[in-house]
């Protein structure tokens, strides 16, 4: 049972889970804090992949590609929040339609700029090859994705728990009025959180490129699984987004191998089960219906 195949699927699932986590964590924080379902999150993942690839091809530096993806997401996230989201604040239906519309536009825009076909994002030389553990083959690049995801996880965790701004974000998820009463400009916190969340998705896209390839459909594919991961983990909970994402990544990897036709169905079944047994999600507090 614990053969090469198992470890391959495991590593694959973890790598996939980490990419989902990079989308889901921001999605969850943004929804928890601002009550906005940001459908553009998957599109920024996709744009991150294209932008990262272009930077890599232009500079031959993978580090710059990652930093570029991060910065691109942060700047775009801040702009989208200030220009598009803020004027509609408080109107959930309008916001839902707005981000949905922006998602569709972005997914078409990318085809105009880079074309509809799959593009190759070459791995940097130092990530070519595999680590051999007996007869188990562990590709370096997938290990890198897992390591990178873990590093982001630790940094974001420390930020949310050790810095005042991070603690304010967690407080805002619970009661943003109360946060304001302490003299804190919650709108600035919103902008920052949105930008941070989008930058995580975008950098996730950049590192996904050499693993998944770069093509327009990665936006839709990933926003859906990320939303499922957020619901499974518990909306607004950072720990939940970690657990939900890894679970979905592993299920997709193993399920996709043994029953490829049903890969997406597994995710939906998992979500349905979680909602039946624990409607607030694995780590969630209030429950879906309790949104302010």
């Amino acid at each position, binding site marked *: 049972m614990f053969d090469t195949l198992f470890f391959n699927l495991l590593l694959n699932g973890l790598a996939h889970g980490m990419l989902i986590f990079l989308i889901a964590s921001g999605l969850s924080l943004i929804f928890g804090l601002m009550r906005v379902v940001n459908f553009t999150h998957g599109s920024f993942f996709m744009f991150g992949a294209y932008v990262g690839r272009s930077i890599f091809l232009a500079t031959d530096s993978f580090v710059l590609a990652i930093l570029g993806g991060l910065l691109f997401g942060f700047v775009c996230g801040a702009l989208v929040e200030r220009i598009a989201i803020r004027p509609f604040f408080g109107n959930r239906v309008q916001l839902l339609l707005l981000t949905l519309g922006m998602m569709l536009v972005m997914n078409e825009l990318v085809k105009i700029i880079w074309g509809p076909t799959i593009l190759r994002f070459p791995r940097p030389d130092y990530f070519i090859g595999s680590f051999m553990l007996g007869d188990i083959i562990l590709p370096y690049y997938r290990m890198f994705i897992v390591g990178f995801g873990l590093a982001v996880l630790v940094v974001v965790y420390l930020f949310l728990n050790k810095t005042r701004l991070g603690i304010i974000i*967690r407080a805002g998820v619970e009661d943003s009025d109360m946060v*304001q009463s302490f003299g804190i400009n919650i709108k600035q916190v919103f902008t920052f959180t949105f930008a941070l969340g989008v930058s995580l998705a975008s950098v996730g896209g950049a590192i996904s490129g050499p693993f998944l390839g770069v093509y327009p459909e990665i936006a839709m594919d990933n926003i859906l699984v990320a939303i499922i991961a957020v619901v499974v983990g518990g909306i607004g909970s950072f720990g939940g987004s970690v657990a939900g994402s890894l679970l979905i990544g592993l299920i997709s990897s193993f399920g996709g191998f043994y029953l490829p036709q049903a890969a997406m169905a597994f995710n939906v079944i998992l979500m349905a089960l979680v909602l039946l047994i624990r409607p607030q999600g694995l780590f969630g507090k209030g429950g879906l219906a309790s949104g302010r």
Partner: protein
Amino acid sequence: MNPLLQLNEVNTHIQGFHILQGISIQVPREGVTVLLGRNGAGKTTTLRTILGFNTPSGGEIKFDEKVINGWPPFRIGALGIGYVPEDRGIFGSLTVYENLKVAARDGIREMEGRLEKVYQLFPDLKRARKQQAGTLSGGQQQMLALARILVSKNRLLLIDEPSSGLAPIIVDRVAEAITELKKELPILLVEQNYNMASKIGDNYYIIDQGRCVHEGRMEDLEKEPEIKQRYLGVAV
């Protein structure tokens, strides 16, 4: 001396309903001003309008001679107006210490400097500082809500029904704490518990259906059984 906070004919609409219909209140620079009135009279709405969570549709709110109507809540909070809402507004998934940190408007250093005194007033909080605030008892949560206000320099406290939902013995402790606070800060207190209000209060306003119907010194209200009966439902 002119009052610290002044409401002149303040009107507030919520979702089309005319909730405050011309509230005029003056909060002096010391002592406890109590807002009394039946359920649904508009006491909480008055506090939330002062804090900027509801924007007044008419009238004027002045803090220290500055007109603050229409300011966003964070700017009003930053003036040094501390708020303890009816439901305490505790961040339940944060630790006690993290709750204080969010409230530390003047910086962590200022907070640390004030913490010893705060813990002296509320020893429970010191023991529980690493505990999730949501796991505290109702009384301890009320203490935390008060403590959050004390870790920064505030000039006025707005406290909404601190006794609600608490056991009588805890109510006494909360009353003691507020009596302690009133030595240092002026307080605008909403309180349904007439006993507690009369013990701590210096001045009162009675609100009924969004209007101020009576005001005066707390000790004079004692001599007005009719008013107490009519607007507060206090048995004579």
